[in-house]
Every structure is written in C-alpha cells, then in structure tokens.
C-alpha cells in the first residue's frame, strides 16, 4: 500500500501502527501544497517560454490557467494510488518543465 521509503516501511509500520493513514494523508497534503505550487509555476513558465503566442496572451492567460493547473495537481495528489506515486507523478511533470525553462533561457 505504501510506495514511499520502501527500506523503512516495516519500521514506519511499527512506529505508526494505525496512524499509517494519517502519515499518508500528511504526505499527500504536502504533495498537494508544495508539489502543486512547483507544478503550477514550472508548467506555466515552460508554456510562457515555448508557446508561440503573443506575450500579452501568455501573461494574462497564466492568471486564468494557474488555479486550474494547481487544482488538478491537488486532486492528483489524492487520487494517486499512494503518496509516493503522487510525488512521482508530480516530479514527472515538474522536472521536464524546469528543463524546458532552462533550455529557453540559454
């Protein structure tokens, strides 16, 4: 059930006991808040860097899109099978987007 920290899984279990769910929930909330923030900033920055649209459209468009992107990330953080998978999925978007922004800045 838990994909996170596989080495320490049994210790987590022993320590947390029935609080497993609470730890999972805490990790998911962290993924939703922090990961969602990183995902929103990186995708929109990457979009602004690479989409061939007028700058003003991109500038104001991000304000309209940002809440929806963040919302999607938050929901994903809870719909993913485990908290670990949630982080993996977020990282799978954030890292390529950061690379794209970095490439555009070169």
């Amino acid at each position, binding site marked *: 059930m838990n994909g996170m920290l596989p080495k320490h899984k049994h210790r987590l279990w022993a320590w947390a006991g029935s609080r497993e769910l609470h730890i999972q929930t805490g990790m998911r909330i962290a993924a939703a808040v922090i990961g969602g923030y990183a995902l929103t900033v990186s995708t929109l920055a990457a979009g602004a860097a690479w989409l061939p649209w007028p700058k003003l459209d991109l*500038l104001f468009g991000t*304000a309209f899109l940002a*809440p929806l992107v963040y919302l999607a990330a938050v929901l994903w953080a809870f719909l993913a099978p485990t908290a670990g998978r949630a982080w993996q999925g977020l990282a799978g978007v954030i890292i390529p987007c950061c690379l794209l922004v970095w490439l555009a800045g070169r």
Partner: protein
Amino acid sequence: MKRTSTWQQALRPFHTWAGLIFGWLLFVIFFTGTLAVFEEEITHWMQPVGRAETVTPHEALEAADKKLRLLAPQADSWTIAMPQARSQALEIGWTNGKIKQEKQLDGASGKILAVPETDGGRFFSLFHFQLHSGKIGEWLVTISGVMMLAALVSGIVLHRRVFHDFFAGRWRPNWLSFHLMSGAATLPFVVMITYTGLTITFFSLLTAVPQVLYGNQWQGAYRLIAQPFDRPPVTASAPLRPLPELLSRAEAELGAGTIGFIRVTQPGKTQAVVTFYRKVDDTLVAIASRAAFDGVSGELLGSQTSWNERVTWHRMMVGLHIGKFGGYPVAWLYFIAGLLSSAMIAAGLVFFSVKRRPQQARQGTILRMVYRALESINVAVIAGLLIACAAYFWGNRLLPATLAHRADAEVQVFLISWAAMLVHALARTPQRAWLEQLSLAAVLWGGIPVLNSLTSQAGFSRSWQRGDGVMCSVDAMALLGGMALAGIAWRLYRRNAGRPVEQLGGSKNWLRTG
C-alpha cells in the same frame, strides 16, 4: 456506487484534513472578505465627522486645489480622491520623496476635517488576501483558494446526493446537514469568488512568467498596457493651471460626473501633468479610463479609454471579485452570500469536532489531546475572529484620537484580542470556550451602536436625524449580528445547562451530532 467509491475513499481524507487546516484560513479569508464588501461604509463609521451635504465635483476640486497649493506647493505629486456615491470623503494627499501625507477635507468649507487616523474598512479587504503578512500571506491565501476549489470538488464527490437533497428541501437540524445545504446554496458564489480571487493573486504572485517573457525589462504589467503620460523630473517652475478648469474638459473626455481620482505629478513645475481617472463603480471591467493634461498649458496630452482585450478580461475578473459594479443591490448580495459561505466553512469545521466527540472516550491520551487542541483552534478561529473584528471597531472608538501611529494601534487591537482568544480557547474546555467566546462576541457586536452613541456625535438617533443612512446601517447590522450571536450562545447555554463540565467533554449530545 461501487465504481465511484474508490474516488470517495481517496478524497475523504483530503476533505477532512485539508478541509480542516485550510478551513481555518478560509473562514478568516471569507469572513473578513465579507466585511470588506462594505469597506467604504465601515470607513465612514470609523471616521465619524459631520460632513457638509453633497458638494459638486467642481466645488470639491476647487477646495482640494486651494488646500494643496497652500500645504504642499513643493511636493513631488498630489492625489485627490473625489467624493463618490458610496464614499463621500474628499481626500487629498501629497508625497515628498518617500514621505506621504493624507488629509480629509470638507468640500464646502475647504477646511481640513479632524478625522481619527484609521485604516477603516480597508483593513478588512487587505487582511482578507494578505493576512497581515505581505507576500507570505498572499501565498497562503492563494493556496487556500485552490484548496477551496478542491474541497468543493471532493465535497461534491463525497456527498453526491447533496443537490438532490437540496432541491428536495430535505435538511436536518445538524451540522453536517447545514454544511451541505449551505454549501449547495452558495456553490455558484463560492466558485465565482474563489476563481476570480485566484486570477488576481496568481497574476501578482507568478513572477516566473513575466520573468520568462520579458526578463529584466519587466516593470510591472501596467507599464505594458497603459499609455505613459508622466514626464521626467525638472526643476524649472511654472504656475499650475487651476484644476477645476481642467475638470470640465476631463469630463468631456470621460463623462460628466465620473471623475473619481486625480493625480498631479510635479505640481508647480514646467513638466507638470494632471491625470484624471474615471470611477469604476459602474462598470464590470474594473480599470480606470484616464485623461492627462499638461499642467501648465492645459493642453490635452492624451486619453486612454480602451484596453487590450486580455487586460479587459482580467480586469473583469477583478470587477466580479470586488463586486462594486452594481451599487448596493449587488453589494448586499455579495454580503449575504459571503456570510452564508463563511457559515458553511464554519459548520464544516464544527462538524469535524462534533463527529469525533463520541469516539474520544475510547482513544488514547495523546489523540484525545490532539483533537481537543484542534477544537480549541476551531473556537479561536471562528468565535475568536468574530471577537477580534468587533474589537477592531471598539479600538477605533476607544483609542485616543491623537495617539501616534493610531491606525497601526487599531490593527494591534485586532491582533492582540485574537491572540488572547486563542489562549483562552486552549485554557478552557471547548464547550466553555465556545459559550464564553460566543457570548463575548455577542456583547461586543451588539454593543457597537451603544459605543458609537457614547463616544461620537454620530450615534444612531443623531445620524438618523441627519439622514446619515450609512452610519445607521452599520450600527443596525452590528446590533443584528450581536443578536444572532446571542441567540446561538443562548442555545448553547441551554444545551449545556445542568450538566457537569466533565460530562460535557464526552457528551455526544453537545450540539446534536451529524
């Protein structure tokens, strides 16, 4: 049912825990935002000075012009906020370097009005998106806003029958039912107000996007979209034209009686520019059309009344959020919807604790303490905020008028009384804390009209005679709020009466459970 139950299973912990943590923030954001709907009216209450009957814009500007020439002939810039439908104040300001000064004038006599220094209702609108902590607060509010949207999605997934029950009028007298019914009723409003709010905060917070698009040339969005009329600073002086003379020409550009704000840069210099801004309280697109004049020759430098389409869309979001486009009917609609939304959030928070009460007897000490602390925070956030807001009104009337940094001191009253309520809530059992804080809130809100009549010349009966409906309405709404809170506190007292405190701690009858 079976297929969707995994979604429900996945989203339930989110709605419970993120709902609790961000619910605290959201209640604060929604409630102070609701008060901010009547920002101007609260400011009017907080500056109780007799103002002359409505003056014409011409007279007002003449008075402001005369005073500014007298007080600040050498200033870098002047600002004049003209009397408006919902705010009769005529406010002049000037800056010298970094020093800013503001005064209120009586439009008819041209005299400076001795008003107490206060942030007035503006405090609530700033607090509702900054939480008194600048950019960090803005991010907290933004993240809470996203969580609000996610809570709506998860709430609907968890309680899919809610709309069915809502339209069938099937509600029960418990916290869950109230949470669900008010949630269904306010859903369109909450989606609108949260989304529009987020488009505003994200626009200012996502600095990475303009950084990518414009790099170091980025100087803020309005450099891109507004025509620049300002001129480089000079030292050579030249007489400034009388401002009232320019007013009629500005009105010809922007519409008669529509000037809301005037800005003069480099008054008394050869490069003086006078810019007239149109009011925005009659348009959904909250961006001010403007006309600029050469301050010396009086020549029209240009006007801007149309904006880029993207900007128009964005400012429409702003207009929808601040709700100033439809006068009092829309303001009341926003106020009532805002109160109901705040109550929806509060009911969710209360339900969190109420639901967990019966289980507490079986739980370990640590878990019991955690749940008790969470409920104490519930009390401090909900009842404590109601007290702090009322205390802000009391501070406005009771702090000495001549106190240095008086506006900041009023905010301190708000913050300190709130912190005191947190300490109180943690020190008492939750039942006692609820009862005591709700009673105190009832007294403070209900006492506002009394306080007003004792400490100012603007008490209810006098304001009524003067025809000051705004002052009377603020008093009346405070009294109404106090009475409603007293009613809730009374119900709570009746439920608690006759039961020893320790029994109350584990009682599931305390405010019927869901």
